[in-house]
C-alpha cells in the first residue's frame, strides 16, 4: 500500500464517517498519522514519516498529541474508559490535580483485561473529557494536561 494524497483523502473521509479520532498507519514505505479536529468535521493534523524516521520511532502503547502548552493523553486501543480501578471507590486523578510523568490516571477495559492509561508528561490536569464507563475508539482523548514546563 502506498501512502499518497489520494489514500490520505480516502482515510480522512473514512475516519470522519466512522467517528475515529486518530488513525495511525505504518507501511514498509512510510508511516501516516491522521488526527480529527475536536468538531469531528475535518482533519486537524496529518503527518507522514519517511522510512528513516519510521525506523527510529520507538513503539508506544499510547498515542499522544501535543498542542501549544498542553498534552493530550489518548487511548491505545478501543475499550471502556475507567477513571479508577474496579475495586476502588476513588478516581485516580481529578481535574486540577498535579501529576507526574508516568503516573497512572485511568484504565482501559477490554473484556477482562485492564490496560493502563499513563501520562507521558508531568503537569496539571486541565480536563478529563470522558465519562467513566463509556466505550471509546482508538485515539480518543481521555485527559488534557497543562504541562509542567509551561504552567
Amino acid at each position, binding site marked *: 500500500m502506498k501512502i499518497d494524497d489520494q489514500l490520505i483523502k480516502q482515510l480522512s473521509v473514512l475516519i470522519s464517517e466512522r467517528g475515529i479520532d486518530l488513525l495511525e498507519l505504518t507501511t514498509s514505505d512510510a508511516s501516516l498519522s491522521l488526527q480529527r479536529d475536536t468538531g469531528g468535521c475535518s482533519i486537524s493534523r496529518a503527518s507522514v514519516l519517511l522510512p528513516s524516521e519510521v525506523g527510529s520511532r520507538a513503539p*508506544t502503547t499510547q498515542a499522544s498529541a501535543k498542542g501549544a502548552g498542553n498534552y493530550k493523553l489518548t487511548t491505545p486501543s478501543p475499550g471502556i474508559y475507567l477513571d479508577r480501578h*474496579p*475495586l476502588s471507590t476513588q478516581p485516580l486523578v481529578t481535574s486540577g490535580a498535579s501529576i507526574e510523568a508516568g503516573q497512572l490516571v485511568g484504565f482501559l*477495559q477490554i473484556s477482562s483485561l485492564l490496560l493502563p492509561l499513563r501520562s507521558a508528561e508531568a503537569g496539571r490536569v486541565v480536563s478529563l473529557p470522558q465519562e467513566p464507563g463509556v466505550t471509546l475508539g482508538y485515539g480518543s482523548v481521555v485527559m488534557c494536561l497543562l504541562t509542567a514546563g509551561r504552567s
Partner: protein
Amino acid sequence: MIELICASVLATVQDQGRFGSLKFGVGNSGAMDQLALAAGNLLLDNAVTDAAVELQVFPMRWRFHETTRFALTGADTRATLNGRPLPPWWVSRASRGDCLDLGRAVNGSRAYLCLPGGIDVPMVLGSRSTQLRGSFGGLDGRFLRQGDRFSAIRREDTGCVDIGVVPPVCSMPLGERGLTTVRVLPASEYACYHGASQAAFWACEWKITSQSDRYGYRLAGEPLLPKTPLEVRSHGIVPGVIQVPPDGQPIIQMRDAQPTGGYPKFGTVIEADLWRLGQAPIGTRLRFVEVTYDEAVAARAANQRWLQTVRRLVDVWAGRRLSA
C-alpha cells in the same frame, strides 16, 4: 530472586493443590483463592498450576535481588514498588534492589505473589504446595520467615508488563456487595436436621470466627439442631464440606482440611465458590445460597470460561506488543 525482608506470619508457598494423595492421609492444600493464583500465573504466561506465595498478614516487604516480572493478585494490598503505587491484579517488572511493600488488605484477605515459571521449591507428591500438618512441600513444609529467598523457575523471561485483569469479584459478582455469598449443595445428613435449622442456615448471616484458618472456618450463628442425636462414623471429607459438631455451630473445611472427619455433613460449598471463601476476612459475615448439582457444575464451567478469556486476552495483547 526475591527475599522476604520483614517479620511475617502465615505466608506459604502454594500451587493449585496436591491431588491423588488423600488415600495416604495427605490433604489437598493449595491456594485458598485458586482463581487469583491462576490469574497471576496467566499474566506471566505461566501454567495455572505454577506455585506462588500466598500472603495473608500485612504489612509486608520483599526485596528483588534481580530484575524480573512479577504479578500480584488477590486482595488489594495497596502495594507499592519503591513507593510507586501498583494496581491490584497486575503484572509489573521490578529491577534489582527494588522493594515491594504490601499494606493492609482490602477487598479480600489473601494476596498472591507470582514469579515467571512459578516459585522454585521442590515438588513433593506432585505439588509444590506447603503441607503444614505433614511439614513438607513449599519451603521446608513451613510458614515463611524473614530472610527466606526464592528464585523464579523461568529465569529467561520476556512478556508483557503493566497490564492487569478485572478481578473475578467484579466480573462474577454474587449476592450483596460487601457480604460474601457462596453456593451450597445440601449434603448427606441435611435431612436429619429440624426444618427450622435448615431454614435458618439459608436465611441467616454467619460470622467467620477468629478460630478460622487454612484448615477450616468455624462459623457462629443460629445453632443447627438435628432431629435426633447423630452418630456418624469417620468418613472422607474434602475442602468445602460443612460439618456440624454437637454445639450446632458449623465448620467449613478449607484447603488444609484433613482427609477424614466424623461430624455430620450439612452441606458442601461448591468448588466454584471456594475462592470467595478464601478471600472472606475473619470477623466478616457469610451467606449461603442453595443450588443444584447442575448449577454447581455450570458455576465451575463459568470459572473456567473466565480463565480462558483472561488467557486469550493476555496472549492477544502480548502478541500485539511483540509485533509493535
